[in-house]
């Protein structure tokens, strides 16, 4: 007869054909899949009709087994094939089929997997034989598999039992020479009605049970004569081997030159054993080494036989520690056992130790729609979301970075695990499985979830093929999963293409927000399968643009990123980038960051808040923030004015609540990691600085100089540090204890000398002698006077003086009616304070129109809510004993006729302050001044006309705000370091850049998200209380608000394409600075381009397909 080289699985197909198999069903599962694939090919070639093999990929193994049984009782030889796990799915019918018995031969091929090459367990199915009264054949080579399959049909018919042909990966996937026999003709005898035989009601079942014994004995006799148990050769020492290790033992003995000296008894049929023949053979030997993988199945039976028959043979194997009970036996294991048991050959050579090298685990293919789906899911759900996965290609979602398998069990359990965990934890969970798995065992699981209204998102990853096991057809072509889900009662069912990341993320977000059982069908055909038939035209590969990839626009401003990105951060970047619809290229620097006086990376902390990574968010805030508690309350928030979301059209025209996010982070750090808020101390430089003025600017320069290794002495005219923070901002905006925390941290690292007023207690001449450098931050405290004609009212007071007195609990003038002149923050602060100090009616009168008032808009609104009247566009025109006269101003026109008296017992004047002239009056060191009398400085370095004197804050020209004052301080420290230690050392820490005065917006669209409003005290209650009005965001609100951030700026550290998407076609370049795309592996799916926030990926050649998708 001819011979052919066949794979073990193909040998089984051939054997069955030679036995005239008429019906085959199975479910693919490695390492059995080539069996069903083989019959699928044959069936396709033969077509339907007389003499053709009937074949089907069954929906699951239970159905395959039942169909094969049905064929067998209808007189057709049948075979079903599956992996060992699948046979357990079919456990119910399997346990009854032997009772009922078959008419024509029925062979069950079940492929085991020692070493768990492709399986979650390596269960030893041989035990099913004695457990269920099923004969078990265990081939050792493809040739034996071929012969056994052919003969198994006879065994089945002789005993009327189904026969289990148990293979292992080694046999199934070895290719060897097989001698072919003739193909047999197919005959089908037909079903003969005999209910007593085929209906196992209890009365019949009991009869069948008794008959079973006789049938098992028939099988035993057949096996004894089959030639599959060959007890050949007699010696003192013999090996008894079964399955794949029998072939390995044979080869090892040949290679070590011991062939023939140690007979190898080949036991290819392991149940029922030909006991009589075995006992006779064992009588003649002294020692038998049992070689079998996994459990001591045969070894235990040989031991029992030896005991029952009082044989003297010594049984060696697992119980004698010659062999392990787990994993496939490699030849060196068998070689060692032979050597140790019988002294033959030598111990296996010492094998070279494998160097430590990176593992190369299988991964989802480039362009895999499952990866796109998982990446979107991770972006759409929170970082702590639980995912339950299932059996299929998508199991690989377990690996980093996708990590979408928190638990996994078996086919169909993705939904049940999710539902069960949701039920006991109360958390909404996600279960995922593929289309084939859904039909296999997922439908009942989904029905159960729907029935119980389980709080789960059930995701079906429909790639329209059973790809994992070799691209077998999936029942998905026959029925829409959505229709099934709806028919099962699902109310929330959505479908999405994972290549559309924005839609997929949005769909997952909706499913996340829903309650009960949501079904999301994520559908995109497997591109590998599409490429297999050659119909699909390959899309162009993508390239990474080196000008955009990992390039931070802020680097151009001399800023370095000190906070590493995290996967959670990158997932947020990916989410936002996917959902942004850009009408023009993004600005290099996010508008918010470009105007921030402290040059904070605002999207940096927003992104980490979304990811729940508050320590990283704190690091971003603290990169250049000195007084965090104060800044997060009183910053004038130019960032929010520049925010792109604030400039977008429609209902969402509201900027991100950036300062509230900052406050959330600072309060988190106070609670959880206060050390993150502490000033850093640099290595001592030996340099000493005097800082005159302990306000925002002086405190900032002090902290920054300490970080640069300077020794700092801080002087202030007042007894208490803090400047305006302590004396000038009312408690309802900035509580005492918040300032105290900020001050304590700073004063801990400097020498503080209170009560030292420049010009009175010390001079620049003195300080420049004692210190290496001096920073002048004395502020502007001389109030501008309001020079008006007329008799003055009872009390007139400058705003700062008023606020200071009120804050220090000194006696302040009060009145039923109070008028505040001015439109800035000091005016609003004074007005609100007056209300709290007991005034009945408070009016703010300012020359600006409402929109032009310098005060923070939120503060103006809050004042109005408290009952304060804002009189805009009026100029004070004269004093009066009863108050102050004002005239309306419209543009440049004033109408004297409409002059109006604002009645007041107290008028507070808030129209600005000048530098205190006394400070420099008698100083030997003189500094250049501006025409306005302020100290003239270099804007970058804060250098004055004296080489070692620097100045900033309100004492120099520029914007007057707490945050701007701090920025002056930080820049001055850099300037001082540069002047005294050189630029190179100074540049080790980057100062904030000069904020941009022109905000470049960005025309972009994004899904609507309402601004979260931080809680505030009820205006009725708060108007008479000094309690802080604004409260901090809750964690939920902070994360929701941070999610609104569009992450406009380019990121220099992002590797989202690797660390969020995990596409294996993307790697780092040789310098590991930027990413590169492997053009051979890239299939052009474009998902990386969707989620790249820097927009660095472009197709090599633009095609229509991409034009449709909107990829540039």
């Amino acid at each position: 007869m001819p011979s052919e080289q066949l794979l073990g699985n193909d040998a089984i197909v051939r054997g069955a054909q030679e036995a005239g198999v008429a019906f085959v069903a199975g479910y693919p599962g490695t390492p059995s899949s080539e069996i069903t694939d083989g019959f699928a090919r044959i069936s396709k070639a033969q077509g339907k009709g007389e003499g053709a093999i009937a074949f089907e990929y069954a929906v699951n193994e239970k159905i395959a087994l039942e169909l094969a049984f049905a064929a067998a009782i209808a007189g057709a030889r049948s075979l079903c094939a599956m992996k060992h796990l699948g046979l357990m799915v079919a456990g119910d019918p399997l346990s009854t089929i032997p009772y009922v018995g078959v008419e024509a031969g029925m062979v069950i091929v079940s492929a085991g997997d020692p070493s768990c090459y492709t399986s979650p367990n390596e269960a030893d199915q041989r035990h099913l034989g004695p457990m269920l009264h099923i004969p078990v054949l265990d081939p050792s080579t493809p040739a034996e598999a071929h012969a056994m399959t052919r003969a198994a049909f006879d065994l089945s018919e002789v005993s009327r039992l189904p026969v289990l042909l148990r293979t292992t990966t080694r046999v199934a996937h070895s290719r060897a020479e097989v001698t072919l026999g003739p193909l047999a003709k197919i005959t089908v005898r037909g079903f003969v009605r005999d209910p007593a035989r085929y209906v196992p009601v209890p009365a019949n079942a009991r009869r069948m049970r008794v008959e079973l014994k006789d049938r098992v004995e028939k099988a035993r006799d057949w096996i004894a004569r089959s030639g599959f148990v060959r007890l050949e050769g007699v010696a003192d020492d013999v090996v008894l081997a079964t399955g794949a290790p029998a072939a390995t033992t044979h080869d090892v003995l040949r290679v070590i030159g011991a062939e023939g000296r140690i007979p190898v008894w080949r036991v290819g049929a392991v149940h029922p054993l030909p006991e009589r023949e075995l006992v006779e053979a064992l009588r003649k030997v002294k020692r038998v080494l049992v070689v079998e993988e996994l459990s001591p199945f045969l070894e235990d039976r040989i031991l029992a036989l030896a005991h029952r028959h009082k044989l003297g043979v010594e049984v060696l194997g697992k119980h004698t520690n010659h062999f392990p009970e787990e994993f496939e036996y490699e030849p060196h294991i068998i070689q060692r056992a032979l050597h140790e048991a019988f002294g033959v050959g030598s111990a296996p050579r010492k094998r070279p130790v494998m160097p430590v090298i990176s593992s190369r685990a299988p991964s989802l293919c480039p362009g895999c729609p499952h990866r796109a789906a998982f990446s979107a899911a991770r972006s759409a759900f929170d970082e702590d979301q639980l995912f339950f996965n299932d059996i299929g290609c998508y199991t690989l979602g377990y690996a980093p970075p996708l990590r979408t398998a928190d638990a996994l069990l078996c086919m169909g359990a993705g939904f049940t695990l999710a539902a069960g965990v949701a039920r006991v934890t109360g958390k909404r969970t996600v279960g995922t499985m593929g289309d084939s798995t859904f039909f296999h065992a997922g439908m009942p699981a989904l029905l159960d979830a729907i029935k119980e209204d389980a709080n789960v998102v059930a995701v079906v990853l429909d790639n329209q093929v059973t790809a994992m096991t070799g691209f077998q057809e999936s029942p998905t072509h026959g029925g829409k999963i959505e229709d099934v889900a709806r028919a099962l009662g699902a109310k929330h069912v959505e479908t999405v293409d994972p290549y559309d990341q924005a839609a997929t993320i949005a769909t997952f977000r909706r499913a996340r927000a829903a309650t009960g059982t949501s079904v999301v069908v994520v559908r995109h055909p497997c591109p590998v399968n599409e490429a297999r038939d050659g119909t699909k035209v390959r899309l162009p590969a993508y390239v990474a643009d080196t000008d955009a990839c990992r390039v931070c626009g802020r680097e151009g401003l001399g800023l370095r990123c000190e906070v590493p990105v995290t996967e959670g951060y990158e997932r947020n970047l990916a989410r936002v980038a996917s959902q942004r619809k850009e009408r023009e290229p993004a600005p290099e620097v996010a508008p918010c960051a470009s105007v921030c006086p402290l040059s904070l990376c605002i999207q940096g902390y927003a992104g980490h808040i979304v990811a729940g990574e508050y320590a990283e968010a704190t690091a971003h805030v603290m990169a250049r923030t000195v007084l965090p508690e104060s800044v997060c309350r009183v910053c004038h928030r130019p960032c929010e004015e520049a925010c792109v979301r604030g400039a977008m059209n429609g209902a969402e025209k509201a900027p991100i609540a950036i300062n509230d996010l900052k406050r959330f982070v600072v309060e988190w750090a106070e609670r959880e990691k206060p050390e993150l808020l502490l000033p850093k101390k640099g290595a001592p430089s030996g340099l000493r600085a005097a800082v005159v003025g302990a306000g925002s600017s002086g405190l900032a320069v002090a902290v920054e100089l300490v970080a640069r290794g300077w020794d700092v002495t801080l002087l202030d005219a007042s007894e208490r540090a803090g400047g305006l923070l302590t004396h000038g901002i009312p408690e309802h905006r900035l509580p005492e204890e918040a300032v105290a925390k900020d001050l304590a941290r700073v004063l801990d690292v400097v020498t503080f000398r209170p009560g030292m007023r420049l010009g009175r207690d010390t001079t620049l001449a003195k300080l420049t002698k004692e210190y290496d450098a001096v920073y002048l931050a004395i502020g502007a405290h001389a109030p501008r006077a309001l020079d008006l004609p007329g008799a003055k009212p009872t009390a007139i007071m400058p705003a700062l003086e008023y606020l200071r007195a009120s804050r220090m609990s000194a006696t302040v003038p009060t009145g039923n009616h109070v008028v505040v002149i001015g439109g800035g923050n000091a005016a609003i602060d004074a007005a609100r304070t007056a209300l709290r100090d007991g005034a009945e009616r408070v009016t703010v009168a300012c020359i600006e129109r409402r929109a032009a008032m310098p005060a923070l808009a939120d503060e103006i609104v809050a004042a109005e809510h408290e009952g304060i009247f804002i009189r805009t566009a009026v100029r004070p025109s004269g004093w009066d004993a009863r108050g102050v006269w004002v005239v309306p101003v419209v543009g440049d026109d004033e109408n004297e006729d409409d002059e109006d008296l604002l009645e007041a017992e107290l008028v507070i004047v808030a129209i600005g302050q000048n530098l205190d002239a006394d400070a420099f009056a008698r100083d030997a060191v003189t500094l250049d001044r501006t025409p306005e009398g302020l100290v003239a400085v270099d804007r970058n370095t804060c250098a004055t006309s004296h080489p070692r004197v620097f100045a900033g804050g309100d004492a120099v020209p520029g914007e007057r705000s707490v945050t701007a004052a701090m920025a002056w301080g930080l820049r001055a420290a850099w300037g001082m370091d540069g002047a005294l230690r050189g630029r190179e050392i100074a540049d080790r820490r980057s100062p904030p850049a000069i904020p941009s005065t022109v905000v470049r917006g960005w025309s972009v669209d994004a899904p609507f998200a309402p601004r979260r409003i931080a809680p505030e005290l009820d205006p009725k209650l708060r108007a008479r209380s000094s309690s802080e009005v604004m409260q901090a965001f809750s964690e939920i609100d902070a994360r929701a608000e941070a999610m609104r951030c569009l992450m406009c700026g380019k990121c220099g550290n992002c590797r989202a394409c690797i660390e969020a998407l995990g596409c294996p076609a993307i790697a780092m370049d040789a310098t590991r600075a930027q990413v590169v795309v492997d053009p051979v592996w890239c299939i052009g799916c474009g998902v990386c381009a969707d989620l790249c926030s820097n927009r660095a990926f472009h197709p090599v050649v633009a095609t229509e397909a991409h034009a449709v998708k909107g990829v540039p």
Partner: protein
Amino acid sequence: VSRTQILLVGVGGQGVLTTAQILGAAAHAEGVPCVVGQLHGMSQRGGSVQCTVILGEGAESSMLCGREADLVIAFEPIEALRALPQMGPATHVVTSRTSMIPFEIVYKNERPPDVDAMVAQLREVAGDVRAIDTRGLVGAVGETRTLNVLMLGAAVGAWPAIGADKSGRPALLPLGEGALLEAVRVRCGAKYFELNKKAFELGKTAGSGTGTGTGTGTGEKAVEAR
């Protein structure tokens, strides 16, 4: 006992399985008894793949029995290194120098292993190591998927296919070139045969060490032999 143990290693998608089948088919055609082990599992998805080809009378198992591999054909140097436990002084290794960086290294942003260092590690264990600069050669063929046939050619070029060497050891590849190429034609399709034949020839020249500079394009020698 005449038994040649060949180990083929590479990355899923590089054609390890196909090459094992080509060797098996050539052996079948030449009447050389042969067992091929093609454990693949999830290998299609970019994982490590190892296949064995056992040639010789009476072999039943597809595993490397009793001693190290006689011949290792490695389509990728990291995978060659992974096969180090299967190597010994009698092992002949022909490996591609073109490494494919495992995702784990990219993900952790670690430095990829140095190819020269890897080849040196192989030489510490294996008796004869040929490292082929395949990048340029594959470029000269114009089709990356011919890498496996190119490496097969390199093995043939390095240790000529037929006949025993001076020590009397059986030939590493007791298979005729004609049979190998015919198996390539059948397995890979007539459409790609000319490309594959070119790859085989380029590989053979490179493997023999005579084809220095053959289209390598990198300035490196096409082959370095010990």
